[in-house]
């Protein structure tokens, strides 16, 4: 040091390292500093394309082709190729829509709500989770668009003047949904892109080839890391987090209103909005774990996405899964307590009565979809309870398997809500049994192609961890920490 800095009065703050017992497990392993973080995270993109990436990409693109082929088949033929039949006119398309959009919710929860709650661990996972959100909402958006049957009239959903002189009808929750989902997608992209700007600048400044320098530089918008810019940037980030929080809560609430505003037993429930939001966050965290648990290993990011991060995500899954379990119980209680015979019939005889215990116990025939109902309960109520155990939370293989079960369960939840409520009308003459066709199944699998094609491209070209944000939570970034240059006992 050339000269010892002279401190003025007001900046004399005593610096002391916290006692060892109070030290938390660090967010970045091995006390790695900012330089190491840049190298490690950017290295994922700069290194050679790994073989597993190429193979996965080939599979994803194949599935994407399937997705588009099925859409083409649907457009050329009509919705009759799906399993839809009276009385079930909302089938897999709506199930998949709600499922995908629910998955998206974890990204916004991590980026916005955990930011407002000052959960600093979110920085290691928010970028990938936000990307997941955007791609999941894209997959979700496919379904309402194609299930209208005549896709070329899709623009009638938006308040655009047309030659008939008719406007959309805004008392319909389906119309609210158009606004909720499109706003959700747009704001998620804005938030994600704003978080990316400093990292694109990192990539620009590290670029060795002209084309990289140009393309990263173009999207970095000339970011220099000026503190006058950071000041506005952080304020804008805070505001976006503040706006995204009510947004994410409203989106799945409005999705749930698609059901609960109707008069149908099983749908007409006031608990739906909070119950859908909790379920969405639950499934979203399931998906984040499914994606990140293998990725942290394959991309050697275990020191940035640490076991502590995985554990914390498991705990959020446990919490939201338990809320979902509570909501199931409450739905049943209200169905019984309301004394409404239709509600009681639906919950017992359309959903829960299995042929072994509940059916014989209540002297009712087995519900046609009892297997779907009990798959849902197993995966959504029982599975998350395993996360009470530290052994489970720290075993990556177990977490991975359970995280997949979470999303199996959440898919079945939407199946139970949509199908079991519809398949038996008030008149027994109108009862039916719904099953998907091969087109339904391939269409659903096809959206995985859409999701993974985009997600793999994201992994390859965009830093999958927010570099600048992770740097900011290291002790090296803290001017009051010895590692950040503060002198112990001396001040500032």
């Amino acid at each position, binding site marked *: *040091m*050339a*000269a010892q*800095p002279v*401190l003025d009065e007001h*900046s004399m703050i005593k610096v002391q390292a916290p006692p060892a017992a109070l030290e938390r497990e660090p967010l970045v392993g091995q006390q790695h500093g*900012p330089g190491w973080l*840049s190298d490690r995270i950017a290295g994922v993109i700069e290194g050679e394309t790994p073989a597993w990436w190429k193979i996965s990409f080939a599979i994803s693109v194949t599935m994407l082709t399937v997705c588009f082929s099925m859409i083409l088949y649907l457009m050329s033929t009509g919705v009759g190729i799906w399993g839809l039949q009276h009385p079930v006119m909302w089938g897999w398309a709506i199930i998949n829509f709600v499922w995908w959009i629910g998955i998206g919710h974890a990204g916004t929860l991590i980026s916005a709500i955990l930011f407002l709650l000052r959960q600093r661990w979110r920085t290691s996972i928010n970028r990938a989770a936000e990307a997941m959100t955007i791609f999941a909402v894209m997959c979700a958006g496919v379904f309402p668009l194609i299930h209208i049957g005549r896709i070329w009239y899709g623009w009638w959903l938006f*308040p655009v003047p047309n030659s008939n*002189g*008719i*406007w*959309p009808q*805004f*008392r319909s*929750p389906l*119309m*609210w949904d158009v606004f*909720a989902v499109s*706003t959700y997608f747009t*704001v998620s992209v804005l938030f994600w*892109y*704003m978080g990316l700007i*400093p990292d694109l*600048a*990192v990539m*620009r*400044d590290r670029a060795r080839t002209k084309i990289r320098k140009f393309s990263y*530089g*173009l999207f970095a918008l*000339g*970011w*220099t890391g*000026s*503190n*006058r*810019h*950071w000041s*506005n*940037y*952080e*304020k*804008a980030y805070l*505001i*976006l987090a503040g706006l995204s929080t009510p*947004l994410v809560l*409203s989106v799945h609430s*409005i999705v749930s209103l698609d059901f609960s505003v109707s008069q149908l037993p099983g749908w007409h429930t006031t608990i739906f909005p909070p119950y859908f939001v909790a379920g969405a966050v639950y499934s979203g965290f399931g998906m984040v774990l499914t994606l990140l648990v293998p990725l942290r290993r394959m991309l050697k990011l275990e020191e940035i996405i640490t076991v502590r991060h995985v554990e914390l995500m498991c705990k959020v899954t446990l919490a939201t899964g338990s809320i979902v379990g509570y909501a199931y119980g409450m739905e049943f209680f209200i169905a019984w307590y309301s004394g409404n015979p239709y509600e009681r019939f639906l919950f017992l005889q359309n959903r829960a009565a299995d042929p072994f215990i509940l059916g014989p116990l209540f002297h009712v025939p087995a519900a046609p979809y009892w297997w779907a109902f009990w798959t849902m309960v197993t995966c959504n109520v029982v599975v998350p309870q395993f996360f009470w155990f530290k052994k489970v939370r720290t075993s990556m293989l177990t977490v991975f398997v359970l995280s997949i079960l979470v999303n199996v369960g959440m898919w079945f939840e939407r199946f139970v809500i949509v199908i079991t409520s519809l398949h038996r009308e008030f008149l027994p003459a109108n009862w039916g049994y719904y099953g998907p066709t091969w087109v339904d199944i391939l269409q659903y699998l096809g959206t995985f192609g859409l999701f993974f094609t985009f997600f793999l491209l994201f992994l390859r070209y965009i830093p999958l961890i927010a570099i*600048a*944000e992770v*740097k*900011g939570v290291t002790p*090296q970034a*803290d*001017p*009051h920490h010895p590692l*950040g*240059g*503060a002198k112990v006992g001396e001040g*500032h």
Partner: protein
Amino acid sequence: MPASYAIMAEFETPAATLRAAEKVRDAGFRQWDVFTPFPIHGMDSAMGIKNSKVGWFSFIGGCTGYATGMLMIWFMNAVDYRIVIGGKPMFSPFAAFPPSYELTILFGAFGALLGMLFLNRLPRLHHPLLKNRRFALATHDRFFVVIETTDPIYSEQETRQLLETLGSRHIEMVEE
């Protein structure tokens, strides 16, 4: 020799940068800035920067969004093409609330992002500092205090001396 844009001093820790920024602020410089790979806590007050005005852009955006939603729905469903739904009033702020709420957030978010870019005068595709090789470390792990030569109290010798006493180990001039 090309004209100089600024004098640039490199620092290695956030603490040193923070101390340096306080001194530069107290010396009375106006056209100067600190460049860091991540925002440093406390740097705004160390530099004497006032609270950001981004909030106003977002607020105006949000109000515009809410008004747009309400007016749009009122005009469409109650004026231009009247539809009776379930015998309810042509327009009710309650049914119009969800889309208007979403538009509040949408416009507010655009206000925040575009306001941030506007206040930062971005996008800017050229900047003298971005031509400097050493400066590329500003997004990596180094911290820079940059004082522009157009600052009223800038003087080639004294400013360099000040930065040296603040503990910078690498000082250089940045070309225009």
